[in-house]
């Protein structure tokens, strides 16, 4: 009986995590890309990764702190041989799943100089942030990031300070 409840609970948790994941349809983009980076880490794999992340290494310790409460990390990065291998229509189709009440765009930068655009979305959960999505486009590159789970914005700001890049200042939600 207890085992049944436990399995039911785990099933519901997995279904909820799956529901929170952004359903991007990128098969066509992947087919056109010359190189693809695909990171797909569900809750179980994240838990396993956390066990292997060192507390002594500064970068790893910081990442460990950040991913400990997450339910999934999904990153797709496509590199294209030529400019125009993907279109504005393709990018628009990637924005579509984020045009719901639960998602909010917090940053959207467009640069005509270097052709780099970055859009950052957060998923509003009851208490705090329930997820993060990034759509970043360059002339020959398109990157999608989806982090599922309760993200601490303070830790998120520390994340930018890692790997030798300046820290991102994120205003705390009141």
């Amino acid at each position, binding site marked *: 009986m207890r085992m049944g409840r436990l399995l039911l609970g785990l099933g519901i948790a997995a279904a909820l995590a799956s529901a929170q994941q952004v359903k991007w349809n990128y098969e066509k983009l992947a087919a056109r890309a010359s190189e693809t980076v695909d990171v797909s*880490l569900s809750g179980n794999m994240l838990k*396993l*990764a956390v066990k*292997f992340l060192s507390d002594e290494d500064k970068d790893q310790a910081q*990442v460990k702190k950040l991913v400990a409460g997450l339910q999934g*990390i999904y990153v797709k990065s496509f590199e294209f041989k030529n400019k125009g291998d993907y279109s504005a229509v393709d990018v628009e189709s990637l924005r579509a799943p984020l045009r719901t009440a639960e998602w909010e765009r917090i940053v959207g*930068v467009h640069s005509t100089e270097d052709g780099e655009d970055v859009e950052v979305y957060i998923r509003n959960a009851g208490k705090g942030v329930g997820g993060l999505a990034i759509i970043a486009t360059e002339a020959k590159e398109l990157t999608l*990031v989806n982090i599922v789970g309760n993200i601490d914005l303070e830790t998120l700001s520390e994340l930018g300070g*890692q790997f030798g*890049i300046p820290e991102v200042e994120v205003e705390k939600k009141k």
Partner: protein
Amino acid sequence: MNLEDELRTALRRRDPSPDFAARVLARVQAEPVRRASGAWRRWVAAVAACLMLTVGAAGGYRYYEGQRAKAQVMLAMRIAAGKLNKAHKKVQMLNHRSNS
């Protein structure tokens, strides 16, 4: 017959029949050699070795999976942090331009 006589009769020395030695030898040769205890030990050793190999392989696979997951997490965080940093830099740049 009293008890003493009965014991004396029962414990009286008797010579074996002339073919006794031959019968014993024939029976010894006829019976298969029993090495049950040795075979059992070998089976136990084989099962233990299999178990150790299985546990070792499972541990090795888990270690490999853990290292792979760790590398993927670090890569994902690098990419996410990089993109956030780009957005941050651009926001800063725009703020700087609007202020000056």
